[in-house]
Structures are given as C-alpha cells and as structure tokens.
C-alpha cells in the first residue's frame, strides 16, 4: 500500500515537472532531473518497504564524537 502511494505521488510530481521540459526540448535538464527523480524515488520505495536506511546524522555524530572528539557531555 505504501509503495503504491509512493508511485502515485511520484507520478503526480513527474506529471507536473516533465511536460514543460519536453515541450521546450530541454533534454539536458530532463536527464539531470530524471537521475535525481529516480534516486529519490528509490529512496522513497526503500522507506516504504521499511528497509533500514542509515541516518547520515548518526554517522556524523559518531565521527564528531569518536574521531574528532568534539562533543559536549550529556547533561
């Protein structure tokens, strides 16, 4: 169900964004847009399927705290 909602939402986004680019023959923009669109769509499907995606913020937290030693003590 969640995946279906993601597909519907991204179809709607494409329906809003793409016609202008194809009508004006902006092929370079369309290629860039398609790559970004597909990457975010894949991310959305992964989230919808409850795939565990590592948070970049947690990686940054570990890097600052453990590698750089930059962290305040929790109060």
């Amino acid at each position, binding site marked *: 169900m969640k995946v279906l909602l993601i597909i519907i*939402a*991204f179809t709607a*986004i494409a329906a*809003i*964004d793409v016609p*202008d*680019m194809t009508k004006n023959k*902006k092929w*370079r*923009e*369309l290629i*860039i*847009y398609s790559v*970004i*669109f597909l990457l*975010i769509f894949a*991310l*959305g499907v992964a*989230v919808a399927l409850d795939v565990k*995606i590592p*948070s*970049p*913020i*947690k990686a*940054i*937290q570990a890097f*600052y*705290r453990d590698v*750089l030693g*930059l*962290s*305040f*003590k*929790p*109060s």
Partner: protein
Amino acid sequence: MKLKSGSISSNDLMFAVFCFLQATILRTGYIAGITRQDSWAMAVTGLIVTLPIVAIYASLLQKFPGKNLIEINDIIYGSILGKVVSALYLFFFLSLAALNSRDMGNFIVYFSMPNTPISVIILISLIGCAYCIHKGIENLIYLSTLLFIIAMGSLAINVVLGLKDVRLEFLKPFFQLEPMKYIQGTVSVAAVPMGEILAFTMITPMLGKDQKVAKPLFLGLILSAASMAVIMLRDILTLGPLVSAVSLPAFESVRYISLAEPLTRMESIYAVVLILLLVFKITVLLYAFVLGLTQMLSQNKQLQSNHTIASAPFKAEQSLRQTSSPPLTLVSAALLFFYSLFVFESVMENMDWGATVAPFFSLTFELLLPAVSLLVVFLRQIGRSQEVKG
C-alpha cells in the same frame, strides 16, 4: 527559480530573520537542561558570540554584492572545489530542514494529535512549504512582518497572563554552576538557533544592490535574542526547577495559564503560532537547498568564468541568468520528507544530538567554512595588491 533583485526590503528581511530564529524556541529545552535557572543569560552570551559570526557573512556578502553563498563559493574556490564546498552547505541546509521537520512532527504528535502518524503531519507541512516556494519565496518573506506581529502579540499575552504564577526566587542562585556549563549553553545557543541564519545568505541577493545586508541581519538577530531571553525568563519564573526536567519548557509554561473558564488551554493558540513559525523556517531552509541545487546543476557558463575577486563586478542581473535549470522543488521536498522520516528513530536520539554534537556540526558550516572563505578572499586581495606594487 529566479532571484528577483530588489524584491524585498531590509525590514522584510529583518522580520524574516526574527521569525526564522523564533521557530527554534521549542529547542530551548536543551539549554534549560544545561544552564537551568541561568538559561536566560545564554540568550545574551549567545548573541555576543553570534555577532562576529554574522559579521563574517555580512563581510562576504558585501564583497560579492548580488551573489548568494553558492555563487560566492564558485568565485572563491573555483568551479570544482566550489561545487564541493557548496554541496557540503546544501547537505547542511537539508539536514537542518529534516531535523526541524522532525521536531515539528514530534511536537504536533505528542502535544496535539497523538494518534496521527508523524509522516502525515510532515507530508502536509512540506506540501505547504513547496507551495510557498512555487508561489515565490518573496511572498513568504513579506508575510514575515505579519508573523512577527502574531508571534510578539502571542508572547506579550502569554507573559502578561502568566505574571500571577511568577516567583522571582526561582531565579536564584545566580550563576553558581560550573563554568563549562555556561560555555556549553553559550555555544549551543550561538550555533543551533542563531548561527542558522546562514541560510539567509541564499536570500540576501533579493535585497537589491542599494540595500545593506548587515543591518537587517543584526537587527533581526538582536530582536530574536531579546525575545528568547524573555521567553526563557518566563519559563524559569513559572516552572522553577521543572524547567530543566520538561522537554519543551516554552510550551509547558504556557499550559500554566488559566485565568478563568474562557481563558484556559492557551497553549493551543501558542502551538499554532509555533507551528506557523516552524513551517516558515522549514520553507526558508528548503528554498536555500533547492536554489543551491538548481544553481549547481544549471548551465551557466558565464557565472563560472569571468569572475575575479579583485574586481568582483556587481551585476545582480547575472544572478538572474539561471536560464536553464530543471525544476527541483517537488523532488527536493520529497527528499526532505524521506530524510526527516529516518533522520532519528526517537526523540531521545534527537535530544542527545542537540545537546552534544549539534553545536560543533553547525559551527563547521556557520563559522569554520565562512571564515576560511573570507580568509582566502583577503589573502588573494593582498596578493593582488602586492603584484600591482611589484
């Protein structure tokens, strides 16, 4: 997405900075957890630390009038390194937007709509943010004046109605904590809410070439710091020792207000104001991300060549030459939506991040990178002047 030079005034920008910072008032819980009854003073010390940081932004923006942060990076660092630095800033803006979206979602779920999935709340808010950007960010900046009046009115009413619950002895003892606590509080206030006005370096070209950038940034910051100090004082004076125990003291203290039968549940009105401010802040951050991404991906050869730091010719119109760029607002909003869902799994993780590492992470982008950029500009200027003399 086009930047219209001269489309906003200094006052609009000042109120926008105020509303942007005021949205983070919910996060004062972190500060109260560190500096307890002395938290109000952190708004002042945080302001003192932030003023030189904002002076760095103002100096950069004045050296490259009509340019935003991404364009300035391209000029200072060149095409390739500039894009790398810009990508880091974009990640910062996106992460801030995701964290604030998550904060807003958590706030609404826990205090207003406990049975609603957080994803639905964040999705509806982000549709609103994308719509604001689609209609033109300048319209939202105009609205900030109205938002300022609403926020200040709400604050004044809450402070006046809460006066009967105030106990001055809750302020004591004065400044008896370890010095490290005050340093932590000051750095946290300076980095997490105040330094985030870095996002406005993406909007300032809309001021136009005759307008000064520094004044609205400084005034917005000072107004917000004053308001933050008042809010923290109100929270301490009404909640007492509880201020460091509750997660959202700014909201809990308003819950105390109950004058008569019609004047109960005042926090519901306050919650609406806070949500409006948070949506405003998320929209500004999303706009900064979308504009930056659009400029990085757009085909604009002239922007990437022909610029030298010594001359830094002012042509605001060059900012408008983003003639060829894909529409990225909706896909960026979708990315932000998914990011905010997995940025943290629990409120406790979020609180731990905010109290321990977030200030250092933020200062990397708010202080370190802009300071390095300004240093490079100065060194090149000195080099050029010596070449001319030689």
